[in-house]
């Protein structure tokens, strides 16, 4: 009989790598999202152009191509990255480009009247953004950010193609060593789903906490 418990350990190691990638990728994506999202709303043409180029480039080329590029081509031009770094970079930049549009959309969804109230109260541009617009926009962004994070989680499976020992990769290993296809793949599908549920649950509770008082219910 195959040593399933040992192989389960392997898969759990893979799960750790997947979680690590998801977390680090999300952080990078969040940073890029705000930089590029606010960049697109900037008054300065150069910033707008930079942000637009970044967003269109990373949304336009497939995550695969980006991953292979980061892994195989960047070193040729002198940029050495570990597989993990390459994975985080590609995932973070890719999802960040999508999330940047969420940031921009959310900021724009905060009605003109809130901007006007800021002007009427003589708040500076940054003050208005910091204290009035972004806190409200963030709430609008949250649900979509949750979806973005799940997309990122799913995209991590692709890093198995560049030899990062994530869940999918370990499932492949287990499959090669045990000759069983069904068990490892079914196991990781369930694990991915649980991780996705955790993300959406986390985002929802964060959303609930932040939305307190905004709906007129007693805080």
């Amino acid at each position, binding site marked *: 009989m195959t040593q399933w418990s040992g192989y389960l350990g392997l898969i759990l190691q893979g799960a750790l790598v997947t979680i690590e990638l998801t977390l680090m990728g999300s952080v990078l994506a969040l940073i890029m999202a705000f930089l590029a999202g606010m960049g697109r709303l900037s008054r300065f043409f150069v910033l707008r152009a930079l942000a637009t180029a970044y967003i269109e480039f990373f949304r336009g080329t497939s995550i695969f191509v980006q991953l292979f590029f980061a892994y195989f081509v960047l070193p040729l031009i002198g940029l050495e990255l570990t597989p993990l770094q390459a994975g985080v970079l590609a995932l973070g930049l890719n999802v960040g480009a999508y999330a940047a549009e969420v940031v921009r959309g959310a900021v724009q969804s905060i009605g003109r009247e809130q901007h006007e109230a800021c002007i009427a109260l003589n708040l*500076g541009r940054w003050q208005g953004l910091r204290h009035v617009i972004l806190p409200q926009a963030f709430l609008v962004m949250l649900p979509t950010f949750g979806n973005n994070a799940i997309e990122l989680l799913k995209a991590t499976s692709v890093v198995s193609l560049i030899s990062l020992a994530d869940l999918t990769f370990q499932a492949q290993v287990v499959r090669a060593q045990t000759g069983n296809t069904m068990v490892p793949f079914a196991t990781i599908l369930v694990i991915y789903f649980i991780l996705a549920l955790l993300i959406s649950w986390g985002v929802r509770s964060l959303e609930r906490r932040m939305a307190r*008082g905004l709906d007129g219910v007693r805080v």
Partner: protein
Amino acid sequence: MSAPIIKVDAISKSFGAFKVLDGLSMQVMPREKLALIGPSGSGKTTILRILMTLERIDGGHIQIEGEHLYHMERNGQLLPADERHLARMRQKIGMVFQLFNLFPHKSVIDNVTLAPMLTKGTPRAAAEKRAMELLDMVGMADKARAMPAQLSGGQKQRVAIARALALQPKIMLFDEVTSALDPELVEEVLNVLWRLCAETDMTMLLVTHEMGFAHDFADRVLFFDRGKIVEEGKPDEIFRHPKQERTQGFLKKIIAAGHRV
């Protein structure tokens, strides 16, 4: 005798090809209470928004207390105002909007203290003390910790007024502050306006469809039509004996629609 606090000189404003204001001029004296009335789309909101620097003008000049609003004098030359100049001029002006525009993520008192703390560096304690006085004046002191979503329209509007007052502007602009309210709630907001009128010496510009209130409240009424002031005068003159045909027509319609004058 004294100099006008607002001097609008032949300003024009277009949205695209559509000319909203066309060579409009007017003057407002300190402490004056002005009612702006007129049909929908005549440019009443636009002139308030221009005074609040929410829209730019295409031509003409505006002076507040003798200082240019949209221009800066540098070595005798008039240059377009920069953001710093606008920020300084805005200190003199406050505005209350038709839809209140409260900050929904901040409690009532935070709505009122935010601007003084950020723009004037008022310490929190002082800002809250002043805010409570203002909330007390508009009858909202007991709701200081509530969130805007928990308030009725009339209550929201009273908070919005307190918020605008917190910056101690010399000029207050009110744009149809009651027209989004349920009829029964209108009174509480109008009462606050009466109180403001009695207890402060601010200059007030008021766009309204409440003809009765405009009549009782204003020192002077301006009737707008198609971006021009068609008629102006004491409330009694305008409402009882309008000279212009357009004014007569407008008032007739409004009265037919069931509004008391």
